[in-house]
């Protein structure tokens, strides 16, 4: 028996049993669809009150806005992450701390988006998850920074600065802001990928890399497509320099596509991602937006996570797969709550749910 498996059996079985227990409370697709049929937010809160979201949702008032409910749902996810970190030991703890560091990238991405939309610090703070290593004070200071160069120099990563070169914070259009978000998120995933490939080995590495590698591939795809949409010519400078299943040849082929439609058609030829991306062009033509990509990425991550959870039980992939499912559930619930709050019909909400 490999030493890492023995370590998981002897030391990490507390965390792994906890993960299995928490997983049993994840909402199934049918439950999410049923929630989409509720007429009011109060009914949804009543349904969720007895589950893992209870502690956060019980603090809400009947008059709470969908934004407050969304935040409560996301806070519950943050509590799960913190809870797992506090119970884990040794290598698993370090792994979860690294997972948590990814949220720094999310924080910075959201910071740029909020600033570009002219929103206040308070509005940004109200939606921020208390995860990541950067504290509120540090982020508050960054919120007053007016250019991306300074922002990236504070983070201290030259590669990130190079990927954001030529993009200005002022006058950022929604598409460009989404591109910046993807670049930041890609940077976060890159750091996590680096940790997994350097510090983990054996089954741990083998189980975690597909999730993080695919995430980088799909963020690279998103960066390429958004760059095409905006009309940026030097696409490759913005990409994360890591490839999982999206090889160099495919990247060059996609980057050299004359227009977005051709690039979307070429996506269908990517063997590993064909299942999710084969309908990309149709979805784009229906919505005239690339926001469907996020849903596709989540669907792919879900499938990978479910496979890992059914596989060998003594790896760090189990913790990662659970966290992917939990994060996705929080996003699904947030989509359902805002959909119901906005008075959308169930059939309009269902396509927003990745389950």
């Amino acid at each position, binding site marked *: 028996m490999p030493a890492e498996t023995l370590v998981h059996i002897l030391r990490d079985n507390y965390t*792994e049993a906890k993960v*299995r227990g928490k*997983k049993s409370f994840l909402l199934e697709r049918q439950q999410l669809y049923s929630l989409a049929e509720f007429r009011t937010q109060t009914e949804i809160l009543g349904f969720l009150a007895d589950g893992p979201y209870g502690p956060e949702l019980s603090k809400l008032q009947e008059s709470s806005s969908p934004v407050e409910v969304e935040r409560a749902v996301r806070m519950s996810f943050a509590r799960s992450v913190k809870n797992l970190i506090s119970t884990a030991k040794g290598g698993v703890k370090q792994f979860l701390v690294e997972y948590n560091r990814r949220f720094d990238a999310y924080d910075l991405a959201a910071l740029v988006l909020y600033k570009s939309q002219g929103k206040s610090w308070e509005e940004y703070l109200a939606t921020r998850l208390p995860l990541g290593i950067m504290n509120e004070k540090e982020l508050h200071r960054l919120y007053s920074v007016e250019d991306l160069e300074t922002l990236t120099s504070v983070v201290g990563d030259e590669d990130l600065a190079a990927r954001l070169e030529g993009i200005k914070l002022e006058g950022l259009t929604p598409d460009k802001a989404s591109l910046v978000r993807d670049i930041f998120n890609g940077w976060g995933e890159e750091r996590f990928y680096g940790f997994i490939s350097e510090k983990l080995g054996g089954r741990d590495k083998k189980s975690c890399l597909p999730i993080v590698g695919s995430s980088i591939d799909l963020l690279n795809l998103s960066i390429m497509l958004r760059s095409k949409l905006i009309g940026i010519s030097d696409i490759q400078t913005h990409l994360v320099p890591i490839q999982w299943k999206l090889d160099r040849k495919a990247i060059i082929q996609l980057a050299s596509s004359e227009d977005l439609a051709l690039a979307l058609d070429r996506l269908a030829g990517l063997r590993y991602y064909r299942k999710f991306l084969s309908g990309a062009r149709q979805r784009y033509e229906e919505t005239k937006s690339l926001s469907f990509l996020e849903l596709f990425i989540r669907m792919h991550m879900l499938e990978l996570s479910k496979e890992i959870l059914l596989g060998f039980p003594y790896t760090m992939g189990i913790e990662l797969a659970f966290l992917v499912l939990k994060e996705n559930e929080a996003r699904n619930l947030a989509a359902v709550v805002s959909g119901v709050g906005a008075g959308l019909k169930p059939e309009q909400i269902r396509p927003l749910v990745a389950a």
Partner: protein
Amino acid sequence: MVDAIVWASIGISLAVFLSVIGAALGISIAAPAIAAAGTERPEIVSKSLIATILAEALAIYGLVVGLLSIFKLPAAGAAALSSDSGFRLFFGGTIMGVASIAAGFGIGTSGGALASATAEKPELFSRVVVPLILAEALAIYAFVAALLLVLQA
């Protein structure tokens, strides 16, 4: 030449000592998983405790083999123990002790897995408990063999 009573005493010590280690191993592997599963689903704790009970039984098997072996030892000043009996007691204790460690590891890992599986799907309990019982059966085989050896000594 080592006296037969020394062999017998070593056998008794191994039976008790290694069985206790096996039991401790089983409990220390299974119990954290049971406790963790209990934090999420308190209702499964009492059922999952079967793993720790079965692990504890290993120490009892070792104790029984050890005590029966002690009863076979001649009283001080009585006739010496035959070398044949000494070896039987030694191997009886060794079989029980070593098998307890192996069974303890099996019970611990399958008990931990049982706790995880029932935390995720409580309805699986009746099926996932089978490997746990089979792991315990390993110790019972050794217990029977050890008893036969000890009783023939």
